[in-house]
C-alpha cells in the first residue's frame, strides 16, 4: 500500500507544503543545503538541523528583508 502511486504523490505534496511553510518563516530546505554542501564544499562540516535552524533564524531578522503591511 505504501508504495502505491497515490501515496508517493501525497507524500510529495506534503513535502512541498512543509517546504513552503518553512520558507515562509525564513527557513530554507535543509536537505537541499546538505546536498549542496556535499556536492560543492565537501571540506565543510555539515551542520545538524538544529544548528542550521538557529543560523537561519538569526539571519532572517538581520537585513532589510521584509513583509508587507
Amino acid at each position, binding site marked *: 500500500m505504501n508504495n502505491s502511486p497515490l501515496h508517493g504523490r501525497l507524500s510529495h505534496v506534503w513535502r512541498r507544503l512543509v517546504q*513552503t511553510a518553512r520558507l515562509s518563516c525564513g527557513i530554507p530546505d535543509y536537505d537541499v543545503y546538505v546536498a549542496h*554542501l556535499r556536492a560543492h564544499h565537501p571540506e565543510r562540516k555539515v551542520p545538524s*538541523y538544529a544548528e542550521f535552524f538557529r543560523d*537561519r*533564524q538569526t539571519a532572517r531578522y538581520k537585513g*532589510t*528583508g521584509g513583509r*508587507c*503591511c
Partner: protein
Amino acid sequence: METIATKPASVTSKILWIIVAVIGAACLAVVALRRGEPVNAIWVVAASIAVLMIGYRFYSRFIDRHVLQMDPGRAPPSVLRNDGLDYVPTDKWVVFGHHFAAIAGAGPLVGPVLAAQMGYLPGTLWILFGVVFAGAVQDFMILGLSIRRDARSLGHMLREELGPFAGVVAMFGLLALMMIVLAVLALVVVKALTHSPWGTFSVACTIPIALLMGAYLRWLRPGRILEVSLIGLVLLLVSIAYGAHVAATPELAAMFDFDAKALAWLLIAYGFCASVLPVWLLLAPRDYLSTFLKIGTIVLLAIAILFAAPQLQMPAISRFIDGTGPVFQGQLFPFLFITIACGAVSGWHSIIASGTTPKLLSNEGEARMVGYGGMLMEGFVAIMALIAAASLHPGVYFSMNAPTALIGNTVEHAASVISQWGFVVTPDQLSQTAHDIGETSILSRAGGAPTLAVGMAQLLHNILPGERMMAFWYHYAILFEALFILTTVDAGTRVGRFMIQEIAGLIYAPLKGTESWIGNVLATSICVGLWGYFLYQGSVDPLGGINTLWPLFGIANQMLAAIALMLATVVTVKLKRERYVWVPGIPAMWLVVCTLTAGWEKLSGPISFTVAAQKYTEAMQAGTLLAPAKNMAQMQQIITNNSVDATLTAVFMLLVVTMSGFSVYAMVQAWRSRYPTAQEAPRVALTSVVAQRS
C-alpha cells in the same frame, strides 16, 4: 522548447476564454447596474474571479513576452549563484506560497473596509482594475528587473539606473514610510482593544505563548516549526475562550481594561522590548504563528463568504463620495485611490519582489505566475474584506467607523445621527450587535479590524451557528489581526533600527555595528520614538486617529509604488522598448497624480492639516477652548500634531517630485541613446550551466 506561453491558443481554449469574458461581463453588469435591491456577494466574487483570470491570461502574458521579454532559457540568479541557502532554485508553487505569505498583511484587510463608506462599487472597481493594471504590473516588473540583475534590491536598482543621489532620497522615503506604516498599524490594534478586556487579554496572552514557543524551539525540539505552531494555535484558542470569563469577571476585567492612551504606551514599550530581545525568544515564534494564522484565516474568510453568500447591505455608491464621509475626509478622487493602497497597488511589495523571491525562482518564465499571480491573489483578499464590510448593516458599519466627535458616545445619539445620514438604525440594533460580539460598545472603533471582525463573525456564525459563537469568532478575528500587526511592528522596528544605524554610521562609523549594544539601544529608541510619536498622536486625536493618519499612510505607500513603477518605466526606455512605455508609465503617472493631489488637499484647503492647525491657533489666541481639547496644553498639542503631519505630507510630495525629476531625466537620456543602456547582468544560457554542473 514549447511552453504554455509560446503555444498558439487552440479553438477550445479560445471558446473557453470567450465564455469567461461573457460571464465576467454579466456579473460585473449585475454588480454595477442593479439598483434598489441588494446584490448578493457571489456576483462580486464571480465578477472578480473573471476579471482577474482575464488579466492574468492576457495582460500578464503580454508583459511577459513584450515588455519584460522573460526568457526561460536564461539562467536566473538562483542557478548562477546557488549557495544552497539564499539562492536556491525552488519549485514554483513553493516560491508562490512564500511570496504570497510575504506580501499578504493587514493592509488589504483594512483599506477596503474604510473605503466601504463610499459604497462597495468604487472600491471593487478600483481594486480590480488597479490590481490588473498597476499593482500586479509593479510586482511583476520589479521581480523581472531584479531577476535580471542578480536579484538586487529596489534601492540598489534605483542607484544603478537613476543615479546614487536618487538612491539616497529613496532610502529616506522608505524610512519615513516605514514609521508611518508601523504607527498606523499599531493604531489599528489600539482602536480594536480600547476598553475591550476580552480582546486585550487574549492579545496579551500571545506574549507568554510566544515565549513558550521560543523556548520549545530553542531547547526542547529545535526547528520543529509546524509542531510548535500547532501547540501555539491551541493555546491561542484556549486564551480566546478564557477571555470570555475574564470579560465577565469584574475584578479580572479591570486588569485588562485600558483606554487608547495607555494601550499606546504599552505597545511602544512592547515594541522596544521585542526588538531588543534576541529574535528566537519572542519575535520569531510570533512570526511563525502569525504567518500560519494569516493564511488560515484568509482561507476561512473565503469559505465563509462562499457558503454564507451574504447580501451586500451597503449601497453600491453612497452619498459620501462627495467628500463628507465620517470615516475619512476627501472626495472619491484622489482619496479612494489613497485609502485602498494594499490590495490594489502597494509600494511595499516592490521591496519583497526585489528581496528573497528573485533569489528562489528557478526560471525566468515563472516570474509571471509568482509576481503577477501573487498580487492578483492579494487583490482577491481585498475584495473579500470589502464584501465582509459591505455585508454589514450600514448603520452598524458607520457606528463603528465614525469618530466620537460626530456620533457621540451613546447608542441613542449615534443611532439618531446615523439615521439622519440616511442609514436608518435603532439604538437597540447597536446595543444588540455589541452584546452579540461580547463587547460593551461598538461605537467609534475605526481602523478596519473591528469592522472586519464583526463582518467575519456574522458570516461564520451563519455557517456554524451556536450560542456565544459570534463573540468567539469576533475575538478570534481581532486576535489574528492584532497578532500579525504586532509581528509587523516587531520586525519593522528591527528593520527600522538597522536602517537608522546605517544612516547613523554615515556620521559616526562605530554606530553602524549591529552587534554594538549602545548602537542597538540608541537606534531602537529612535525608531520606536518615531513611530511611537505618531501612534500616541493618533490615540489622542479628536477624530479618532485613523481619520488623520490613514491618508498619510496611503500617500506614503502609493509614493513608493510610484517610485517603483517609475523605475520600471525608465528601464523599459533604457532597453529601447519605448513603444511599451505606457505599461508601467501610465500607472506611475496615475499614482503621481493621486499622491500629489491628495498631498495638496492635505496641505491647503478645507480638509488640510494646515487649516486644522490654524483653527486651533486662532481659538487659542482668542482664549477659547475647542473640543475635544480640555485645556490649553491639549490645544497646543493638536496644533503641533497637525503641523508635523503637514510637514510630513510636504516631505512626501517633495520626494515624489524629486524622484519624478530623476526619472524623466534618465528617460530623456535613454531615449536619445541609440543603444540599450540598462544595467542588466549578461545572459548565460541555462543549458550551459546545467550541463557544466552535472
